[in-house]
């Protein structure tokens, strides 16, 4: 009903509906939000799949991400080049994973990517320290930071290699039922 929009073809909207957790209306709304981030860059007509990417600096100005301590890492994890330049597909993908309908396993995978600052597929002690500093800034002394990170690795590391692999992370997530509701950004 009401196929008056000319932004996407019907096949494109079907593909978006099949591959993400959003409905047609929400996809169109997301396109509106994407467009207003960089009106001169983003065309209103997406029927021929233009290759447009918005740089990191513009995306982290969104009100949903502006104050988030992990905004840079979130955008980088969903970009194809790893530097935070998101095409519209990546943009939709990002909010689809962060929406409330995404299953726990999918969210755990991307949460792991976000916390893995040096992108080596492990959350090592430096990654934890960076996470902690983003979350608390000047409140904790360096010794306290060190202690907390050591304690965290001690608790969660199952196979004894002093860093958290994805299996350790997922095991910890499975014992935190709040994760589904806290790892969630509404748009």
């Amino acid at each position: 009903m009401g196929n008056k929009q000319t932004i996407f073809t019907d096949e494109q909207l079907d593909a978006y509906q099949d591959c993400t957790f959003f409905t047609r209306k929400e996809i169109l709304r997301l396109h509106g939000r994407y467009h207003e981030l960089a009106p001169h860059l983003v065309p209103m007509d997406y029927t021929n799949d233009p290759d447009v990417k918005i740089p990191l600096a513009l995306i982290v100005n969104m009100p949903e991400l502006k104050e988030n301590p992990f905004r840079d890492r979130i955008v980088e994890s969903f970009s194809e080049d790893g530097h935070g330049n998101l095409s519209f597909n990546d943009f939709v993908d990002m909010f689809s994973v962060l929406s409330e309908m995404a299953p726990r396993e999918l969210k755990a995978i991307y949460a792991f990517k976000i916390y893995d600052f040096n992108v080596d597929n492990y959350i090592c002690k430096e990654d934890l320290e960076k996470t902690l500093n983003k979350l608390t800034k000047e409140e904790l002394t360096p010794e306290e930071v060190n202690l907390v990170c050591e304690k965290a690795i001690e608790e969660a590391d199952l196979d004894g290699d002093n860093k958290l692999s994805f299996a350790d992370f997922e095991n910890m997530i499975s014992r935190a039922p709040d994760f589904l509701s806290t790892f969630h950004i509404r748009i």
Partner: protein
Amino acid sequence: MRRMSVFPQHGTALGNLGLTANEIRQETENNTSELISDLVNLSARARFQAIRSLPMPFNEKKAIRNRVNSVKLSKTILAADCRQQVSRSFRRFRASLASARQHLIIWQDTLKGIGSRFGTSVLSYFLFLKWLLKFNLFSLIVNFCFITIPQIVHEPNISSITGFRGLELLTGVGYFNQTVLFYGGYNGEVIVSKPTYNMQLAYFFTIAAYLVLCGVSLLYSMSRSFQKNFVLETGPVSGGAWRLLCSWDFSVVNEKAIQYNKNNLAIQLKESLSERLQEKNQMSLSDRIKRLSLHLLAWLLSLGLAVGSGAGIYFLGTNQELAFSSNHDPSDLGAEASTLLLPVVVSLINLIVPLLYSLISKIESYSNPRAMIYISIVRNVILKMSILGILCFYWLDSVPEKTSCWESFVGQSVYRLLIIDFIFCLLGIFFGEFLRNVIGTMCIQTLGVPEFDIARNVLDLIYAQTLAWIGIYFSPLLPVMQVLKLFIIFYLKKISLSMNCQPPKHTGRAAQIQTVFIALLFFPSFVGALSMVAFTVWSLKPSDQCGPFQGLDTPFHTIFSWTDSLPEYHWVGWIFENILRSELFYYLISLIVLVITYFLWQITQGRKQLIKTLREQIVNEGKDKAFLLNKLKNLQKERREMASYRSQDYDQTPYFNPNWMNTLPLDM
């Protein structure tokens, strides 16, 4: 389903093994084909859910989806176009249904705003309120359609003894006495119309069906919530790792709220660090005895307060209300207003005693803050349920003999309790939050802004809902008031929250506390209300002059007279006589349920054992990995030493990455 490699790094993992580009492509192509054949074999709904849950960028997901669709198409017999059209339109229809449902959800934007400023634990209070609102709306619609409308249509002349005075809104007597608001306004005639409509049966079955549906819905929510949130805790869970990695609330968007959460997190981390240091000093025996005796004292005080309040309410009730009911002088406003004394006293007790409880808990010292929250919840629940229990006992025990039309009387008492509770809630918002905020920020700076106490607010909601459930039998239109009340409270609390309060400090484990609240709504609250209504229906004699069950021994006898009136060997009558009324049936059912419970419990034990074994296996594999890595390093060293003797022959040696095992896909 076979999980796709978690980190498909475009073949770089395999590149380190020294494979050529072609072999890498072949390997990833094999993985993809296996994935597609798995997906094709699923049902349509599961397939789309699986595609959506793939951890790949959008373009790859789209490619996989297109390939799956083409494989599916090639397998069908119908013309490709036709089937594609049908499935596409079907999916579009389902999607438009989903978006239409979105429109029906009330308060969507408001809840999003609250969640983004205060976090998920405060949001859970408002979601609970919305859920209770749904129960009451449903009850209202059902009662109105099946009971009230036939009554109004059939007997429109309501004889009012007095005109409408303002006091009725508070006390519920007088003008409201003979209206359809209360039990007394209904009569149990069989309405003679095309299909005869038996008012007695309608009243009985409507209320019974509503209560049964409520019970089923509560059980379902409780079990779902329990399954999601009470996971096996076989390790230290309230520690640093969880707090660091899983507890940050991404949905909070407001700058001040984020700063507040950051401060809280830092405080909690410091607390847990200092706790860890403290744990190392063991407590001496005398310290432990002292703590235990303080706990005992606190419990004795709390229980004493609860029992005392119950006794006080009972004596007040027996003295006050009966004095009013025996001389029904409608123009005596003073006596009528004095019936408000009991509800006011009840609400005052509900207000003051929890404050006393929190004072008492300050003298105790707890090992962790979660225990403190749970114990205070238990004490408050005991207080509220004992008050309600005493009131029910008084209503069911002393009132029926002494008053005519006692069901209306009980309905009016419940109505008064609910209204006064609402007024006190409004006063509480004003004094408890607004004034406290003013005092805390202007006069006494150290008090600070009040915290939004989720537990107390939710328990108030549960208390009001219990009253509403008790009152449904005695006053079928009571849900009207409850619906209005919940609506107003939602908006007032929201305003008060944004103006006056700050989010609670200890936010951990919100999901578990949610489950506890749902369980509390089921166990003392719903079950208590249900047992009271069931007792009334089963064993008490209904009043002779008013109500739909006049002249029967118990309201339950309507079923007997109905089954007697059915033709012989009618299947309903047969089921009723031989199954529902025979004890053997219930014995058999209980036995079967017990056996199934034991069986499931054994399965749980087995699974716990399995988890333990799997954990040990993970630890062992880690040790194996370390061992093999060491061996590799040694081998590589030897190889390099050997290669340094021969110069040109081994230019083509693939570089051996000692960390090659780490870069393998994880499901190997």
